[in-house]
């Protein structure tokens, strides 16, 4: 019964310990690499050409009239982890090495230690040791120790260690005693002392006895082995460093400092007045890159930007075309008779699309605070415009309807030009006697495009925010 209780209590203790471990280990083993893109076990500090996550970035604004676009000034210096890892894998392959041969655990171990500091150390130590690839179920830190260092769990291992070299030690003392001079004195002293109480242990555990000559050869071999092993590792990291440096040099040959405007982040809308009608809505999108000519942040940048404009909502124009600056004087004649009113207004959606590109150049003279360089160039120099406007309107005058007379005017307005509209009209007047009078006209009227293309026509204003 006592035995059963003892086993039960042992199992309970083991369960408790296991539960503590399950709580502790996930935290203590929480190794967080500097960057998740790192290959575990590679000592990146030994590669002289470092990564910096690939780039450095500063906010940039480009103002075109009332529209402000967001971009970034960025520099790809150093290497990305993807590029560096590619070099590492290639170097391993070229030198017929494996990642296991190069792996180091120092950083993992340091992380384990910092996390373990929060927990009950005994539990953490057993938890860590349980990860050793030992195909046995061991119960204590001591068991692990014996298994790992002495290779057996027999308690007799201790006495086996202490009993080592007894004969060799005695022989060494005797040999020393046979030597002459002061050495002989020391040796004779030692041989005498060996028999004295309290110093027996000194002699019994002495390790003298093997051949000096053989030892010398082994020492030299060890030194060479150490040198060779280190040379393999050093050569690997050295080659990685050289290749990384060369890649950086090659990249420097390209232009790595750029001002970029991402199309996906630069969709804007703005209200405009077109043909004298306000409240129309346009959209615009900016994209493109300006590149440093000098491969450095400070210096001259140039490149092409693309600006796309598109009509979003021209309903104010479509509903009030008769009030546009070009034709309102004509239509006003109709209204001057006093009785006309619009009875129909139809047409397709107004289409306005502009694709424009232009070369901009600026010189960035500083990398501190807010910098607003002078920008040379325009985005409106080279543009393609697609415009389509058409409306069909009907007016009717029923002022004299009581007398059986009325008047009607139909107008068709078309335009593919931002600066004009063509209007053809057909007017008829009916009298109470069945008579009819009609009149037609067809004429193109100039229109004022207003500020519909204002982003294209404005001087670009660029601002770089280094302090943001």
């Amino acid at each position: 019964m006592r035995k059963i209780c003892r086993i039960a209590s042992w199992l309970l203790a083991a369960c408790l310990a296991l539960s503590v471990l399950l709580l502790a280990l996930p935290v203590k083993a929480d190794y967080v690499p500097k960057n998740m893109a790192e290959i575990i076990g590679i000592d990146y500090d030994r590669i002289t050409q470092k990564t910096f996550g690939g780039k450095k970035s500063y906010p940039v604004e480009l103002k075109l009239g009332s529209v402000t676009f967001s971009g970034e000034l960025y520099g790809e210096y150093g290497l990305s982890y993807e590029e560096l890892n590619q070099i590492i894998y290639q170097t391993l392959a070229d030198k017929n090495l494996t990642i296991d041969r190069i792996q180091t655990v120092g950083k993992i171990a340091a992380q384990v230690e910092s996390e373990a500091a929060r927990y009950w150390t005994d539990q953490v130590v057993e938890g860590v040791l349980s990860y050793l690839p030992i195909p046995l179920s061991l119960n204590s830190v001591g068991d692990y120790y014996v298994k790992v260092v002495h290779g057996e769990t027999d308690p007799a291992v201790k006495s086996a260690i202490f009993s080592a070299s007894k004969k060799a030690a005695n022989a060494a003392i005797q040999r020393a005693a046979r030597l002459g001079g002061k050495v002989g004195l020391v040796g004779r002293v030692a041989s005498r002392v060996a028999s004295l109480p309290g110093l027996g242990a000194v002699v019994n555990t002495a390790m003298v006895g093997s051949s000096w000559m053989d030892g010398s050869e082994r020492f030299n071999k060890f030194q060479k082995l150490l040198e060779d092993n280190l040379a393999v590792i050093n050569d690997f990291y050295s080659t990685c460093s050289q290749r990384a440096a060369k890649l950086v040099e090659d990249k420097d040959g390209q232009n790595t400092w750029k001002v970029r405007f991402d199309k996906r982040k630069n969709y804007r809308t703005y209200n405009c007045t077109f043909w004298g009608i306000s409240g129309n809505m346009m959209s615009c999108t900016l994209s493109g890159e300006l590149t440093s000519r000098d491969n450095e942040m400070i210096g001259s940048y140039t490149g092409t930007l693309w600006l796309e404009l598109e009509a979003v909502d021209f309903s104010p124009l479509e509903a009030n075309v008769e009030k546009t600056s070009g034709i309102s004087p004509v239509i006003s004649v109709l209204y001057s008779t006093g009785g006309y009113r619009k009875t129909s207004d139809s047409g397709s959606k107004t289409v306005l699309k502009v694709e424009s590109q232009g070369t901009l150049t600026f010189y960035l003279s500083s990398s501190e605070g807010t910098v607003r360089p002078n920008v040379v160039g325009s985005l409106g120099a080279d543009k393609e415009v697609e415009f389509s406007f058409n409306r069909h309107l009907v007016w009717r005058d029923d002022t004299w309807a009581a007398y059986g007379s009325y008047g009607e005017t139909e107008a068709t307005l078309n335009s593919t030009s931002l600066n004009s509209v063509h209007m053809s009209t057909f007017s008829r007047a009916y009298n109470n006697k069945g008579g009819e009078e009609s009149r037609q006209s067809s004429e193109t009227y100039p229109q004022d495009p207003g500020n519909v293309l204002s982003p294209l026509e404005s001087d670009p204003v660029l601002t770089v925010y280094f302090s943001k």
Partner: protein
Amino acid sequence: MPKRLLAFVLSLLIFSLTLVSCDIESLFGGNQNRNDEIVGDGTSYTDFMNVMREIKKYGDITSEKGLTSFSEYYYSFAGASVSALRYAVETILWLKGEGGSFDDFVSDSRYAGWDRIAEINYSSPYPSYFEGLLLEVQGKSEECLDPYAVSSIMPMFPEEGLDFYYLKKMDVSALYELRDELREIEDSIYSAYSPSLTGRDWDRLYFDPEYLIALSYESVEAADYDSAFFYARQALKDDPFEPVVWHNAVMCALCAGEFALAGQWVDEGLAAFPDDEQLTDFRQMFFNILNDKEGQS
């Protein structure tokens, strides 16, 4: 055992330096009196200092390669040996009537006391040897036996023996000169390496890594992991040329919760013994922990 190999190499080095220099003075201890019949059979302090400078260079080389434990071995061996001779010279000067109290007389030196100097590196035979020498020159022929005996059985005890008895007869001015030169060597060593001393009592068997490993075993069994770690660290400092010393060191560091140091020793041990299965298992252990954690997250 490889330490004995180093001792042999050092012996050869001493011999070579002696031949190359063809300097009678160096053969007889530099500035010591040529007519002094007490001169021993081949051990001059000039050669001693040259050898220690060479060992210090080994420390520099291994330190540059990031082999912390190997560099500690070389630095600490040279440091303990040079400090021991310097302390012996200072003691002889004091015995000759120099200075006031002994403590005041040695207060300008880096390390004083045989226990303290020996702890810098227990595998150096020089603290024991010079301790015995000082007792012998004072006529304490019985008391000198214990330290002499211990030094003589140390693996690093030079095969051709040690004989610095002539220090007793050297002029005071020559002894001061020697002390200052030894202090300069100490400065060069300890500017590159700072010994971590605990002040523990000096067990004369600490020079034996197998003995230290046995003490580690006893301490682990008694769940005294701090002591186990101390013994393991001393064993590594005594003899870093045997894989089992590294196994013991890593295991005791783990037991003591010194995981960062354990990781460093795994890496350094594998640099020396890349095919060692136990060290490879230790490395795998850390990666298993990491992989397990990544699997959970």
